[in-house]
């Protein structure tokens, strides 16, 4: 153990804490944004600080500081124990943590080429070239971005754990916005919308995207959408592309499986969950072919981790197996309440925030169908891809999602492109209607770096392994005139 974390834990114990953990984090970030060939924002950020969590008098306290110094450590320890004692004024029973064997470990990052060694000019140059290639007539905005993270996190606890984890993340994406004289605006993105695709990898991950090679075709698809017909409205069979399915999985399976949410801890912000403990082990969440895992062990996955922010070793569990709801994402405090073992899902957004239950990599296990077979099984339907809009109710049941692009399917073949495709449904009805999942060749783990939860808001980096999948009798083309 280093002297700083040792001082924090010893201080908390001396003041009466029955448990203490300390995370000391040093993090660099770089965000690069280019619009129409010119740099719009290049931000280098450095964060260093520590967060301390204690249980005292049976209740939680947490505090953090960006001043890493002995005197500040002493001050924060005093404050956090006082906060815990204040919490205890309203406790009903003492916090109990599941027992976890202490770990001493050092985890290296998974990058081949440290992205922070690549000059800004090279990053900007690549995005500038790609966005210039997208500026075809009719394209009004071509945008590209990259984001990189490098972190060393030290976790030490009064249980005897001392874990050092290094992490490197890289991500990138481009998008083209096209506008018509009639006021129509359409967007297409590559390889994914928002910040693109992200992984626990180095510069090699960005190079492998081949942004430049895909730039023009992405822009042409945005232009084609301007001329496309509107999404038809009705109940149809739906093939959901892998990117869009990552969103579906995130919103309708990942979030409702968070045990703190199930136990009401998120009720005042993002809401609760329909996956109540009485459903564990028996509720039919999806059809027989639906198997959903929470797996922090997938190499390079953005949601991967060796240990979570409670020092729990990450392990794979089935949230849904054979269509039946089986397991939660949990923590040391919540897992025992439903008879589970902690599986490594407690994560904090930086040093300043307290760990909460988060997604890791949430994945729909691949099936055995080719893309042609998925489409070929649809007489009258729709294929949608590219995340554009998402909304789901506060129990994660009623969802409505929009995609960047859609194609009609008739007679088992893709037909005309349609614009503004939307679909809506009830989570378990939707997953129960799944009758086909693409095979391993179509499988990809998408890295999502903008998952918001908690108060104060925390942003988590998660991932979702998906193949395209087919759903029957879905309401598409939601009316909104």
């Amino acid at each position, binding site marked *: 153990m280093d002297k700083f974390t040792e001082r924090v834990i010893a201080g908390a114990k001396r003041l009466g804490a029955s448990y203490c953990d300390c995370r000391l984090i040093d993090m660099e970030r770089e965000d690069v*944004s280019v619009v129409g060939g*010119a740099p*719009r*924002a*290049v*931000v*280098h*950020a*450095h*964060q*260093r600080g520590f967060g301390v969590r204690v249980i005292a008098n049976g*209740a*939680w306290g*947490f*505090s*953090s500081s*960006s*001043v890493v110094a002995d005197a500040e450590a002493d001050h*924060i320890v005093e404050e*956090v124990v*006082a*906060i815990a004692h*204040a*919490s205890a*004024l*309203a*406790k009903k029973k003492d916090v109990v943590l599941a027992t976890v064997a202490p770990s001493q470990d050092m985890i290296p990052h998974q990058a081949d080429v440290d992205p922070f060694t690549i*000059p*800004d000019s090279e990053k*900007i140059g690549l995005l*500038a070239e790609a966005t210039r290639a997208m500026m075809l007539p009719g394209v009004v*905005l071509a945008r590209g971005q990259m984001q990189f993270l490098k972190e060393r996190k030290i976790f030490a606890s009064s249980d005897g754990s001392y874990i050092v984890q290094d992490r490197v993340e890289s991500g990138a994406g481009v998008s083209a916005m096209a506008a018509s004289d009639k006021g129509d*605006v359409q967007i297409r993105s590559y390889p994914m919308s928002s910040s693109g695709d992200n992984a626990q990898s180095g510069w090699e991950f960005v190079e492998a995207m081949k942004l430049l090679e895909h730039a023009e075709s992405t822009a042409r698809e945005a232009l084609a959408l301007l001329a496309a017909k509107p999404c038809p409205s009705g109940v149809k069979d739906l093939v959901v592309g892998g990117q869009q399915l990552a969103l579906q999985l995130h919103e309708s399976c990942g979030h409702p499986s968070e045990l703190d949410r199930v*136990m*009401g*801890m*998120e*009720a*005042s912000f993002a*809401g609760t969950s329909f996956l109540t403990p009485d459903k564990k082990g028996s509720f039919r969440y999806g059809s027989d072919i639906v198997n959903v895992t929470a797996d922090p062990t997938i190499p390079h996955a953005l949601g991967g981790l060796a240990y979570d922010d409670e020092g729990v070793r990450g392990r794979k569990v089935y949230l849904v197996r054979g269509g039946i709801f089986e397991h939660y994402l949990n923590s040391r405090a919540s897992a025992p309440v439903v008879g589970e073992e902690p599986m490594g899902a407690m994560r904090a957004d930086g040093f300043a*925030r307290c760990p909460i239950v988060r997604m890791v990599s949430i994945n729909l296990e691949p099936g055995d169908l080719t893309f042609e077979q998925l489409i070929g099984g649809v007489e009258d339907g729709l294929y949608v891809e590219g995340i554009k809009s*998402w*909304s*789901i*109710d*506060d*129990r994660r*049941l*009623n969802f*409505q999602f*929009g995609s960047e692009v859609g194609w009609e399917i008739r007679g088992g073949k893709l037909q005309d492109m349609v614009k*503004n495709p*939307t679909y*809506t449904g*009830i989570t378990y009805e939707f997953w129960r209607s799944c009758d086909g999942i693409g095979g391993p060749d179509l499988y990809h783990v998408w890295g999502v770096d903008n998952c918001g939860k908690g*108060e*104060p808001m925390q942003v988590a980096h998660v991932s979702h392994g998906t193949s395209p999948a087919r759903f029957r009798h879905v309401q598409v083309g*939601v*009316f*909104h005139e």
Partner: protein
Amino acid sequence: MSKEQLHGLMHDALRVSDADQIEIVTMTSNSALTWYAENIIHQNVAEHTAQVQVRAVVGKKVGSASTTDCSPEGLVLIVRQASQAARLIPDDPGFPGLPSPQPITAGRVDGWVAATAASQPGERVLAVKKVIERAEHEGLRAAGTYQVQSSELAVVSSMGVAAYHQYTVAALKAVVMGDDSSGYGLMSSADVADIDPEAVGEQAVRTAVETRHPAEVGPGAFEVVLSPFAVEELMGMLAYLALSARSVEQHTCFLEGHEGEQIASPIVSLYDDGLDPAGMPVPFDFEGMPKRRVNFLTQGKGGNVVYDSYYAAKMGRATTGHSLQQPNDIGPYPLNIFMGAGDSSEADMVSHVERGIYVTRFWYGNPVEPRRAVVTGTTRDGTYFIENGRKTHGVRNLRFTQGLVDMLAHTVEISRNRAVLASSFGIGAMVLPSIRAEGFQFTGVTR
């Protein structure tokens, strides 16, 4: 840290720069939050953070760097890093240079309350206990947060900008749940003494009790009465989609090309005013530029959008003092949105509805067609059916898919009372009334 100490540190750091222009923005924050659910406190947290953001300009090259190290050595290091970064990146031909200083009208803006900054965790816990006890009395479960924050924002630049503002925020929120219903209460102010936990708890409990055993109604078009909380969710979406120069660039601004035209109902006025003491004022933006009032809609007629110095130069306008921390990919942003008060009350509005829906809150709004500001989301925490001028019973939560401009065009009544709703950005607030609107589109029902 005092204003003089902070500015002294920042000016010392400016002097080590060899860039053509340099800007330092420092934000320090001490915040604490008591988080409760299921009638217990499950998290009680504090954070003491500082963030220093530096922009260095060399010709048309802009380098930036940020750090959490607010020491003299940390500031000097970050200034040097930003200056080095600027030399290594390509020109940004559109960069207009850092803005020159402008007079800041800070006289009427005082957002600091010492009692809020000094409040202790035990005080928050006692307030939260009042909400919990009120919920328990009705056999309900309370969840929510009580947050207090004290922050400093300081901006200095080699152009002569020197701005400083300190402010406090206190906000108590309650979601109270029964088996099949829930209610909501919220109060926010710069002064912790304004927070009335009994009132917050009572509002949430009353709604949860009144909406028990919800019936299924809809989907379809309904006349609605929207509480200020519901209006806030929609105006937040509108701010994101359509009220800034970036939205003009993105072609999602419904105001573009319609200045002076009647777009919304003549009773609707929507504006941003960072100096109005009725909200949570901030006299300048993250470039140290003075806040100017921007009228988006005046008696329903189209107005302007907000600008920072970058977009102002790009579009041939003057900055309105709406920059977020630079550089960013969000563009200028309105953090102090007001809707003009009407002459009605919420009770009057309900009494004027023959058959409609009362919405306490909306949730998870997201754009469907940005150009027309069509958004979707669901209701939550207290949705009532209104029959013959009375809230008769709760209804299951509904999904809406609605054009916000259309809604503002069909707004027929606005309350004189407005709620102050602290921004989730940690700075600024919206000041919003209840509204009554016709033909609001509900497109689904949840379970």
